[in-house]
């Protein structure tokens, strides 16, 4: 009988499979992580996550303070303060909503507040567009946010759990933004393995604000005026924390694999068909779908093309990426963003990739930047083929523009 009870208990603890969207996957992660304070404010497309959170709360599945704020600035400030007072928090936004919260986004890493936020990537106004662009999340890239782009609903759920674990690690205490491409991921359903609560509890310790807890038993003064006397030393502490993220991330991914049995390989970037590739394409988020389809097609035609999908943008695994890219004769970086006036007028990722290669010891393949899929425009298989053609030209040393717009009406 005791044995039967154990078997039944084990069954209850096993994973479930559900057909859910990327947004719902993150809401499920909030429930599994037993988040304490969540703030919502509507903007498409991220707000679907809060619609799911609302249901979880009203159905009694998630016990948290769920606050609908009066704007994104307050939305992020409320959870920032809740997190400083010891609560595990969740928040999110999209596009200009994320920009409206910019002041709060600036101080959150500076205060060493391990907030986890979802960005449903959306084009910035004007003109209005609901579709994906990565410029929203990228605006915080210099401030101490950990930034990760996920590709599937499964990866969204898993990464949210990993994000809590790494952000709330006392060695880190930095916020993390999980970017989910608007519509393509936020609103698309896929089969997702939902892990058991038991496994999550084993993976994710309780948030402990420790010596930084704002409480009458620990009467500290947080964020006084530092000025030129101390600000530089405090910035250096943030620098050191970000420097430690890579190792803590690796630990977390290893532990994740041991507990959940799902492996992401290299945590920082995913390689697809790169073993024998001549050239590779690069990008972030759901761009991988058309790129992978196109690569399968081109491989049948004898073109040895691979794909490197950057997962973690901050910290940026420069040395590892440079070593990986040194194996190929040319790299084509597809940016779903822009950086007007940047070096070679490239997108943000292309500029970072060039920067990573410059100081690397190995071979430096030419890097061609492509700007595609802005405002939610679909990147098609023929688009990817055209991009690949450009990268082959670069590999063969044919002169061509270092930044090319793809899928543009001419």
């Amino acid at each position, binding site marked *: 009988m005791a044995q039967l009870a154990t078997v039944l208990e084990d069954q209850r603890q096993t994973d479930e499979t559900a057909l859910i969207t990327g947004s719902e996957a993150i809401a499920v992660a909030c429930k599994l992580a037993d988040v304490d304070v969540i703030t919502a404010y509507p903007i498409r497309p991220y707000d679907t996550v809060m619609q799911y959170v609302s249901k979880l709360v009203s159905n009694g599945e998630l016990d948290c303070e769920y606050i609908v704020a009066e704007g994104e600035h307050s939305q992020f400030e409320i959870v920032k*303060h809740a997190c400083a007072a010891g609560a595990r928090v969740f928040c999110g936004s999209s596009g200009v909503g994320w920009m409206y919260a910019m002041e709060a986004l600036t101080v959150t890493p500076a205060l060493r507040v391990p907030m986890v936020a979802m960005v449903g990537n959306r084009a910035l106004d004007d003109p209005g567009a609901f579709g994906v662009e990565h410029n929203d999340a990228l605006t915080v890239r210099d401030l101490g946010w950990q930034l990760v782009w996920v590709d599937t609903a499964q990866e969204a759920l898993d990464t949210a759990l990993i994000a809590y674990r790494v952000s709330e690690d006392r060695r880190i205490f930095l916020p993390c933004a999980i970017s989910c491409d608007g519509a393509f991921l936020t609103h698309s359903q896929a089969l997702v393995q939902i892990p058991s609560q038991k496994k999550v509890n084993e993976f994710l310790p309780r948030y402990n604000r420790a010596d930084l807890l704002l409480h009458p038993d620990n*009467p500290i*003064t947080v964020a006084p005026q530092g000025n030129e006397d101390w600000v530089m030393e405090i910035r250096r502490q943030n620098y050191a924390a970000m420097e430690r993220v890579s190792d803590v991330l690796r630990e977390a991914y290893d532990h994740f694999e041991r507990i959940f049995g799902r492996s992401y390989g290299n945590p920082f970037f995913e390689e697809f068909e790169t073993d024998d590739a001549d050239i590779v394409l690069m990008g972030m988020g759901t761009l991988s779908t058309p790129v992978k389809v196109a690569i399968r097609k081109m491989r049948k035609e004898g073109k040895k093309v691979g794909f490197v999908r950057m997962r973690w943008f901050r910290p940026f695994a420069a040395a590892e990426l440079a070593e990986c890219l040194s194996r190929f004769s040319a790299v084509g970086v597809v940016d779903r963003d822009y950086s007007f006036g940047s070096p070679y007028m490239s997108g943000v990722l292309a500029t970072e990739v060039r920067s990573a290669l410059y100081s690397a010891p190995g071979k430096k393949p030419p890097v061609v930047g492509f700007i595609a899929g802005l405002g939610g425009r679909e990147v098609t298989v023929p688009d990817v083929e055209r991009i690949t053609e450009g990268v082959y030209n670069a590999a063969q040393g044919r002169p061509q523009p270092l930044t090319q717009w793809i899928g543009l009406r001419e």
Partner: protein
Amino acid sequence: MATYVQIDPTQKLEPFKAVKKIPLEEYFTSGHRTCQGCESALVMKMMAKAAGPRTIVLGSTGCMYVANTTYYSTSWVVPWMHTQLGSSGSAALGTAAALKALMRKGKMKKEPINVIAFCGDGGGADMGVGAISATLTHPDYNCLILLYDNESYANTDIQLSGSTPWGANTTFSTPGKMKRIMHRRWKKNMAGMMAAGHPECRYVATICMSYGLAGMNSIRKALTIGGPTFIHSLDPCPKGWDYDPYQSHEMGELAVNTGVWPLYEVEDGVLKLTGRTQQIAAGKIKRQPVRDYLLKQGRFAHFTNDDIDYFQSKVDAMWEKWLVPGVIPFRREVEEDHPPA
């Protein structure tokens, strides 16, 4: 009886019966570097004393942030955290929400802890008014927002705010050869707006620390009553108002006695004029002319007699024409406004 609002118990802070009954312990002490005669520093001291040791204070950017919390020399004995200029409402709400969730879920020892967020008039009446308003609509969270109003952005060099009196000379409204009156906006009625616009906020009050015991007891009531509450304090500022620092206390008394700054509280929707204001309204004492108040301050030194008369007429209207005198500026009929040329 079922209730939709689930509120945690608060500390029961009885009013101090007399000045001599106030405890000696200080929770806002040395270490700050506010100006001589700074009334806002006094407000901080009295606020912390009134609230006691089991309190968390959030301070938005402004004088009481910059001057009070130099790194390594904080004046706060209770836990204190900076919040952004427009975030006093959000800071109070977030901190109160965390305490509530953590205590309910057994992650923190259950105990009533006061949460106070303060802001200046720039942070409160200008930038932060939206967040304060939002917080006052959340009945579930125990927190007090205290607006210390020195009537300008005094920390950044005395620039006008939405709470600066009409006509005042600030660094953004200096009188010149062509324009004598650069600041032509009437002071925003924050406390009246908060009281009138937030039906579930149980306590709104105006105070002036020239009447310290009443001010402290108002803070104690706000913290005891539960839910989000709001107190607006008028703080004379020697630097911004341009008077000798020893006159701060007197300046606060003059603001009340001229009727420029009405003292009142709105508790569960019931309005009660308090202190000298109550006596003025009851006809026991006469309102002093605003001239006595204005001409003591350098910021009004450029006023002509017409300007003073106009200021007086606006204060008179506040007491004689408003449907709720001194509090709510609704009128029975349209009146013409004739500002001086």
